[in-house]
């Protein structure tokens, strides 16, 4: 079954581009992606651009409204995701804990709905 791992962190809490730590951080993401691929768990995964690039859309009374900014202003922001194919929650949690951001941010793990028909 598929689990999505939503990667949340405060923007300033992670290594910044240009620092020595950033290189190592990116490498650890590379290593994680390689591992989930090799283990046959990887379905998809992406990093997202910052919430300053977000636009929120809603339709009310047939009228489309757009808002500059994310849906919710929170300290910790959604920065990316992995969609993994795991046998149960234990396995999914085990992989989620290996995502490099888990060390300073949080990973929300949720199963994907399987429609019956």
């Amino acid at each position, binding site marked *: 079954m598929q689990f999505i791992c939503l990667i949340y962190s405060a923007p300033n809490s992670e290594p910044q581009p240009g620092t020595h730590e950033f290189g190592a951080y990116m490498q650890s993401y590379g290593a994680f992606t390689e591992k989930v691929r090799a283990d046959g768990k990887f379905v998809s995964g992406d990093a997202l651009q910052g919430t300053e690039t977000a636009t929120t859309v809603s339709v009310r009374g047939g009228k489309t409204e757009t808002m500059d900014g994310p849906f919710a202003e929170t300290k910790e922001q959604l920065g990316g995701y992995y969609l993994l194919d795991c046998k149960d*929650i234990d396995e999914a949690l085990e992989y989620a804990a290996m995502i490099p951001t888990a060390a300073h941010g949080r990973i929300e793990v949720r199963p994907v709905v399987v429609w*019956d028909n």
Partner: protein
Amino acid sequence: MLPPLTLERTIDKTVREEWGRILASLVKSLGDLQLAEDCLQDAIVSAMSHWRKNGLPNSPAAWLITVARRKAIDRLRKGQSFAAKQNEISYLFDLENETNDEMDIGDIPDKRLELIFTCCHPALEEKTQVALTLRTLGGLSTEDIARAYLDSADTMQRRLSRAKKKIAAVKIPYRVPDQEDLPERLSTVLRVLYLIFNEGYSASSGECLTRSDLSEEAIRLTRIVSRLLPNETEVAGLLALMLLHDARRTARTNPDGSMIALEHQNRARWNNAKITEGVSILTDTLPKRRIGPYQLQAAISAVHDQSPSWDDTDWQEILALYDLLYEIQPSPVVLINRAMAVSYARSIDDALTLLDQANGDGELDTYQHYFAARADLFSRIEKFEQAASDLKTSIGLSKNDQERAFLHAKLEQCQKNTS
């Protein structure tokens, strides 16, 4: 034909004693907690009429399992996704050929350990772990659990059904964790059992019966886990700890429900059978040399329980045990209890110095037990004004009515001494 009263009692007794075992077996074969619970309820209803007509079966528990499985087949057939469930149904038919209502419960593999690890899975909130353990392993009704935790039955019902949905949705497995994960997962199970015990222990047994039942239930469940994991010394340690604490139950409250400190308890009212059992479990467990916090706390309790009077207490032994405990569990509560042991084993001044040092950066300033302990030390060296001031702070920080009443009584005593 059985008289209805006997019948109902037998059903109650079977359900009460075997609920967890029956349910665990059903969950294992059905793979779904809610379905298993619903089918077991169906089977209990059907037992009422069948047993009245045909008399009691050889093994009521095995009968309930067999009938609950048939109910499951019915439910799955009636369900929307009949085609998708073909595999489950034929699996259940196979099972049915292997078991029958003439079997004994002992013939059915005990799956309660698997189930308790599911109920205490870290993906569930602590309060949910507690409620789910009481419901599925203990067989307590949702209403009873709600009453014990001062929730409405509706709220508790929602909490339990949310949890069961989550277990199914994220596939929380029914299995005993691998050796590698076992210590951490087991410590969650033990914490849940201890929380249940304490919930029953810290409440007044007089005014609210369901609460002391919680302690009994915690002991019963810990006994089961201890039987299923005989090599885990901390499970035995927790069981011993519960028994050694529970032995003092009736001696620790006045008839009006107010608390009596260990020092003033009537030791003749302590339960000898429980003390003997607790001590004998410890005697078997400690030599295995895999010491943990529950075993040490049990050992401390055992020293108290075996001491003929407060004055005869072996404080050197207790302090040595607290030293070990503080090494592996340096928490504020252990620190304060250790300081109290120091006050008896060495001197009150030493204990006060220790507490002062511990609160060097004011991190215990919101900790009720810190002030209660200091007040006790101050009043023992007749510094009643300081004691009274600490008691007032302590009362302000306390969240429990009984505890507040206990501290108020001490405060009055102090104020009498100063005037």
